[in-house]
Structures are given as structure tokens and as C-alpha cells.
């Protein structure tokens, strides 16, 4: 099991080179350089201009208010958005949409590359086997100790497998595969062709970042299939949190959950981090230096909204999580969970402007985001007895 801990950084050279090639672009916009020898380009360069063109993939997605997300259903856009910046998540997969590949692989039972899910299943099976071996060893040691006590002698020293030293036995697994393959061949002709029912799901924050900052995504209205304007998107993304919609109590509020979460998302994305959801580690966001395929996330972010004016909080129809003072036990729990997986906890305080100081007319455009302030605090546990430097 010890080999698993650093496996993320122990990929083979070929795999690393392959990843560097596939995930070369950090954002969906790519730059195409002109041919190096041109004199025109050289002259322009002297004047401070460039012939470099920006390639915009112009991706398209559909807004889905029920799941509060934007769905990318066509494969080309889905692939571009994942490979250039790790935007979105396949709704039936761990990360990139791989459902169709897994189904085909399951039918053939002869996959060349294991998908992330298949690697996970293998790891889980091994962990389960380890737990069973360990439980058996503990039971055996207990029985031995009982017997030894009854006979009045010393028990033999117990050998209990630990995570660091246990190795998976390969015997049982390989025996099964050859039996399954012949059955599949007969059924293959009768199975209907697979239709890909998976889509890439972007959170509203990811979608807005792509629309507003990079202008590489068009969002379609789910009913009319017409592209939504920036103004309509800005309104619609806030309105998903207003249930039922258009009630006066919801309008013109700086503490709309979309705005607060977008402030934090935009902050980290614009600094170059790859930002993904953090529910698996009890945090709001995970920050990756280059992307999930390269290394595990180094930081877990908890977004803590702070109201500049407490009256705004009292009149708020949204119950923003973590907006009230938190307890030491809560902080300790989350820090512990993240330390166990070698992540550092960051508390990100997003200050919501006061509606009495800042005019709510500003809410009609993303310019109001300039009035939110984002401050982050890194948390590390200090053990004075052990940490001397």
C-alpha cells in the first residue's frame, strides 16, 4: 500500500510525456505562432506588435437550472474544455467523461488502458483484501493469545499485516478473466450499439469564467436552444438560487450564493490554479497546481462569507454556509481530514459589500465583483514538541 501514496508522482516517463502533450494548453484559448522566418513579423515585433493569433474553440453548452450547471453534450467541446484547463466533470465519471469507454471496455473485457474508475476499483479490491487479511490475522493472534494463556505459556509474537508492508496476492484475480471473455463474444452481436448518455458538467462558476473572461463558451437556453446573452446569463445564474424565482426579497442582493462562490473561484483561477470541487474532503474547493492528472491537490479551500454589514445577513433569504462563527471542533475536524490526505487547509474569506454603502444598481453587471474582497488564511497545525524549525 505504501506504493500508492506517491503513485501520483511515480508515473512512467512515457505517461508523463503523453500527459504533457495532451494537457499542454492551460486554458481553452490557444496561441498560434506565425512562421519564425518572416521579416514582416520581425518588423512588427520591433514596433511592439505581434502576428500571434488566438485560436478560440467556441464551445457550446446548455444551461440546466435543475442541476444548477451547464451541460456540454458534444464530444469535441467536452474534450477541449477538459484537456485545456480541466473544466467540468463527466457526470457518470470521476473526472473526464469516460463512461462510454468503460462500457465498451467492459464488453470486450480487454481494455488496454485502464480508466480512472477501473484503477479505483482495483485499488478498492486490494484494500478490501488487505482488510480481510488483517482482520483474519488479528483474530488468529487473539485466539493464539487465548490458547497460550489457558496453557500458561507465552504467546508467539503476532504478525499483523500493516498498510506499508502488505502486498496484494495476484492468484485469485487472473483466474477469472479468461472464463468471462468467451461468453461476451456470443452476446456481442445481440447487444445494441451504445449511445453515449454522458455529458461534461460545468458548475455555474466555471461556465461564467469561460463566458465572461475567455469568451470561448456559448450557453444555450434549455427551452428555446437560443444562445443567451451575457446579461441573461448573469441574471439566470443568480436566479437558480431564488426558489421560487423573481420574488422581491431575492432581487438586488450581494450575497447571492453564485456571486460569493464566483468571487472565490475567479480569484484562484486568475492566479493560475486549477479549481475543482472539494466535497470529497469536506471543503468547498480543491486547488491543483497544473491539474488532477499531474498531482494530487495541494490545497483545500473553505469559502467563508463575511458580511460587511450585519443587517444584510439578518435580512438574507439565503442561508449561506459558514457565514456564522465556526466552532473550534469544526475547524479541527476539517483540518484533520485534510492533513490525513496531505492537503493544506486554506480559509478564504469573501467579504460581501454592504448594500447601504454600495449601490445595488451595480448588480446588473459583473463589475460589482470588484467590490468583493477575498482574503485567504493558510492553516497549519503546530506541534511545539516536534516542530523546532
Amino acid at each position, binding site marked *: 500500500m505504501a506504493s500508492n501514496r506517491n503513485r501520483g508522482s511515480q508515473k512512467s516517463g512515457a505517461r508523463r510525456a503523453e500527459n504533457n502533450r495532451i494537457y499542454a494548453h492551460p486554458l481553452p484559448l490557444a496561441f498560434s505562432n506565425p512562421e519564425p522566418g518572416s521579416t514582416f513579423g520581425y518588423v512588427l515585433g520591433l514596433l511592439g506588435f505581434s502576428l500571434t493569433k488566438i485560436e478560440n474553440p467556441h464551445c457550446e453548452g446548455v444551461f*440546466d437550472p*435543475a*442541476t*444548477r*450547471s451547464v451541460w456540454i453534450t458534444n464530444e469535441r467541446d467536452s474534450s477541449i474544455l477538459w484537456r485545456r484547463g480541466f473544466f*467540468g*466533470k*463527466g*457526470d*457518470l*465519471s470521476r473526472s473526464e467523461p469516460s*463512461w462510454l469507454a468503460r462500457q465498451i471496455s467492459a464488453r470486450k473485457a480487454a481494455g488496454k488502458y485502464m480508466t480512472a474508475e477501473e484503477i479505483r476499483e482495483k485499488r478498492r479490491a486490494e484494500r478490501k483484501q488487505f*482488510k*480481510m487479511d*488483517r*482482520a483474519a490475522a488479528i483474530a488468529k493472534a487473539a485466539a493464539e493469545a487465548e490458547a497460550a494463556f489457558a496453557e500458561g505459556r507465552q504467546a508467539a509474537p503476532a504478525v499483523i499485516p500493516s498498510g506499508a508492508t502488505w502486498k496484494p496476492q495476484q492468484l485469485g484475480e487472473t483466474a477469472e478473466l479468461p472464463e468471462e471473455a468467451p461468453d461476451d463474444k456470443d452476446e456481442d452481436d445481440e447487444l445494441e450499439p451504445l*449511445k453515449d*448518455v*454522458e455529458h461534461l*458538467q*460545468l*458548475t*455555474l462558476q*466555471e461556465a461564467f469564467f469561460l463566458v465572461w473572461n475567455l469568451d470561448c463558451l456559448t450557453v444555450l437556453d*434549455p427551452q428555446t436552444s437560443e444562445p443567451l446573452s451575457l446579461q441573461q446569463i448573469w441574471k439566470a445564474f443568480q436566479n437558480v438560487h431564488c*426558489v421560487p424565482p423573481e420574488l422581491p426579497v431575492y432581487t438586488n442582493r450581494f450575497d447571492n*450564493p453564485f456571486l460569493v462562490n464566483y468571487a472565490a473561484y475567479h480569484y484562484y483561477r486568475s492566479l493560475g490554479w486549477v479549481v*475543482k*470541487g472539494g*466535497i*470529497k474532503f469536506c471543503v468547498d474547493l480543491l486547488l491543483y497546481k497544473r491539474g488532477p492528472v499531474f498531482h494530487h491537490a495541494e490545497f483545500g479551500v473553505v469559502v467563508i462569507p463575511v458580511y460587511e454589514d450585519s443587517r444584510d445577513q439578518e435580512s438574507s433569504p439565503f*442561508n449561506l*454556509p459558514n457565514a456564522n462563527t465556526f466552532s473550534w471542533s469544526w475547524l479541527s475536524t476539517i483540518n484533520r481530514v485534510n492533513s490525513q490526505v496531505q492537503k493544506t487547509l486554506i480559509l478564504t474569506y469573501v467579504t460581501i459589500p454592504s448594500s447601504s454603502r454600495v449601490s445595488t444598481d451595480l448588480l446588473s453587471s459583473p463589475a460589482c465583483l470588484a467590490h468583493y474582497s477575498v482574503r485567504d488564511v493558510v492553516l497549519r497545525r503546530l506541534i511545539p514538541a516536534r516542530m523546532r524549525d
Partner: protein
Amino acid sequence: MEKHPSYEALAPYLSKYPKIAGPLFQTYNDLKLGQQWTGLELVELSGCSRCAIRGRRPQQVDLLHVVPCSLSESLSTDWIRTTFKELDGPSHVYLAINTEDSSIVYYKISPGIVKPPL
């Protein structure tokens, strides 16, 4: 969402309980297509304003119950008690916590203290 093959089976509940439409849709698809569960049925839990999903894992016989909810919801122990009551007291229930990026985290909830399996 309407064009998705699972929409037809879920349509009556999606319109009846719109607040939980997203989580129900995501959980149903994850169980049916992602986890390949068999025999999926919808069980209405009117006390919790949603419906639960009942089915079996591939190659297993136990009937399992999954209750979808959203990460932004606030739950109480009373709510959990109601789900157990409306499902006729199963030995355990899986709470499917859905997020906007389509991640689902499942928590197994049992009434009373249960010793860990291994």
C-alpha cells in the same frame, strides 16, 4: 434534461418536487448508468418532499435504499428519522449528497450504533 433517456421514468417526480429535481436526476443516473444497479424503483417520501430510489447492486441480492439530497440543503435528525419511517424501517439507508459539478458522495446511515464491518 428532457432529452435524456432517464427523463421519462423520472418526469412525474421531477415536476412534483422541483427543488430536488437536480439531485434526483443525478443520483438516478449514477445508480443506473454509472454503478449499473438493477431493478431501480422510485419510492415517494412525502414527509421529506422527495422520492427515494430502491434497487440492487450488480450481482447482489440485498435491496438497498438511496435518498438523494443537495449539498446546499440543511438536514435534521428528525428528517432522517422520517426517511426511515417512510421506507418501512430498512436496516440502513444511503444518503446521496449531490453537488453542482455532478459529484455524488454516498453516506450510509443506520439507526443506532453499528460496529464497522472489518
